[in-house]
């Protein structure tokens, strides 16, 4: 983990209520796809944990949805503003289990962390398929970014206004894959858990206090003991998950 200042170099809407922000700064502590950053905002006490969508040597990209007052403030921030950011948080995805044909399943703002993962898997020569689910056509984002990586990309919308009608799980029924990685709202993760026939990794979202393992605010029970979503997570392997209800 590292605490440092980042400069906003881009902050623009890319879909309904969804923004892309590029932050210039030290990314050296971000070591794995699926990790997150925790952002301090003026006027708010707790930081905002947001997954990393992409990194290069001196900048990181996040994609966030305006869901409350904090993200609303973020959407209004100007280029050249600085942010106090904790980087390198969370365990991230383990690529070593992917096999030759990994499947990525993303839902809404669960899509961004899968982008950097896709990039890494493609670099390793894997044949990657991404199924990205949204509610409606105006919420769709990142389709072209995945395609530009050479990833076979399927978009689903719940109302059928774009791509395949239905949920991500409707689009994978006859699909052949070696392993899967997923991130999205919990009802989607539960559906993915049931609909998949291989092992895989799930990235969870939970309300956090600190984001670095100190407060025990985001604990969950797993097969291998209690874990903190911010520290031993947010990624849990399928075999480890205990659903709360």
């Amino acid at each position, binding site marked *: 983990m590292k605490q440092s200042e980042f400069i906003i170099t881009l902050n623009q809407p890319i879909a309904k209520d969804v923004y892309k922000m590029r932050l210039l700064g030290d990314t050296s502590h971000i070591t794995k796809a699926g990790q997150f950053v925790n952002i*301090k905002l003026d006027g708010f*006490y707790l930081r905002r944990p947001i997954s990393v969508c992409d990194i290069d040597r001196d900048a990181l990209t996040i994609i966030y949805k305006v869901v409350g007052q904090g993200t609303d403030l973020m959407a209004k921030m100007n280029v050249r503003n600085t942010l106090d950011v904790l980087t390198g948080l969370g365990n991230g995805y383990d690529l070593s289990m992917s096999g030759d044909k990994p499947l990525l399943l993303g839902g809404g703002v669960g899509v961004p962390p899968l982008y950097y993962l896709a990039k890494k898997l493609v670099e390793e020569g894997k044949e990657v398929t991404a199924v990205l689910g949204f509610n409606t056509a105006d919420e769709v984002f990142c389709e072209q970014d995945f395609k530009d990586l050479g990833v076979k990309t399927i978009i689903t919308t719940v109302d059928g206004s774009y791509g395949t009608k239905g949920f991500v799980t409707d689009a994978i029924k006859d699909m052949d894959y070696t392993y899967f990685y997923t991130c999205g709202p919990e009802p989607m993760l539960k559906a993915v858990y049931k609909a998949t026939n291989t092992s895989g990794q799930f990235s969870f979202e939970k309300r956090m206090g*600190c984001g670095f393992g*100190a407060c*025990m*605010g985001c604990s969950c029970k797993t097969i291998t003991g209690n874990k903190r979503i911010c520290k031993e997570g947010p990624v849990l392997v399928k075999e480890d998950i205990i659903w709360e209800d």
Partner: protein
Amino acid sequence: MGRLSVNLCGIEMDNPIIPASGTYGFGYEFAEYYDINILGTFSFKGTTLEPRFGNPTPRIAETPSGMLNAVGLQNPGVEKVISEELPKLKECFNKPVMANVSGFSLEEYVSVCEKLDKEPQVGWLEVNISCPNVHGGGMSFGTSPEAAAEVTRAVKKVTTKPVIIKLSPNVTDIVAIAKACEEAGADGISLINTLLGMKIDIRGRKPLLANTTGGMSGPAVFPIAVRMVYQVAKAVKIPVIGLGGVSTPEDVIEMMLAGATAVQVGAANLVDPYACKDIIEKLPEVMDKYNIENLKDIIGGAL
């Protein structure tokens, strides 16, 4: 001894800064970020007899200038604290640590304190009779002078190390409870634990925390903490540890002027992992600004 040093219940500390229980794990988590030996000491995660998972999530909510938590004393239980956590701590911390103890019965407090008292790494026992997030125990011992005195007496009988009783602010007369603890043999008082609060999710139209209520902390509670530390410090002769929303070197000085011998830092650690390090490093400069030569000289200066 340096300008920042204080003496807490007979133990000399390099400085009065103590990360508060529940915001600092068992210390080694923060040793990844800086050398935790710069601290006065720290109070480790509230420990009970049996392992506890704590409350369901969500356990955390944001408030104006603060937060609510309803973690519910998640901890591995005293046996594992002794066999696993303390050995890990030993590798990165060479000072006496403050052992924070919670319980649901008199017997539990006694048993956990007795075990931790025997650990050479433990310098002080901090007995939490003020957790607002558990049912049938915790805070109920801290809301009446008689019950608080009973816990104090029982723990003192089985321990050799200084016993500090951590008090709840959710009471009508904090002074009466502090005095009852002092008369029962307490070596020190720490206050305040969190204030009982609540947040409702207006979209979902229900309480945001799974536990319904939670304990409020952060800068918003600081003036309440200062007031209660002041009232208690006026009334007792034993040392007082001040906590509740402390975030800056100025807050530390204010707490000490109100009567605190040492100062705990809680929620600030969760927002800024370097909060305690920054406070310790900036204290000398801020002391210069207010013409304070030695911190120990200002304890109770405003009483």
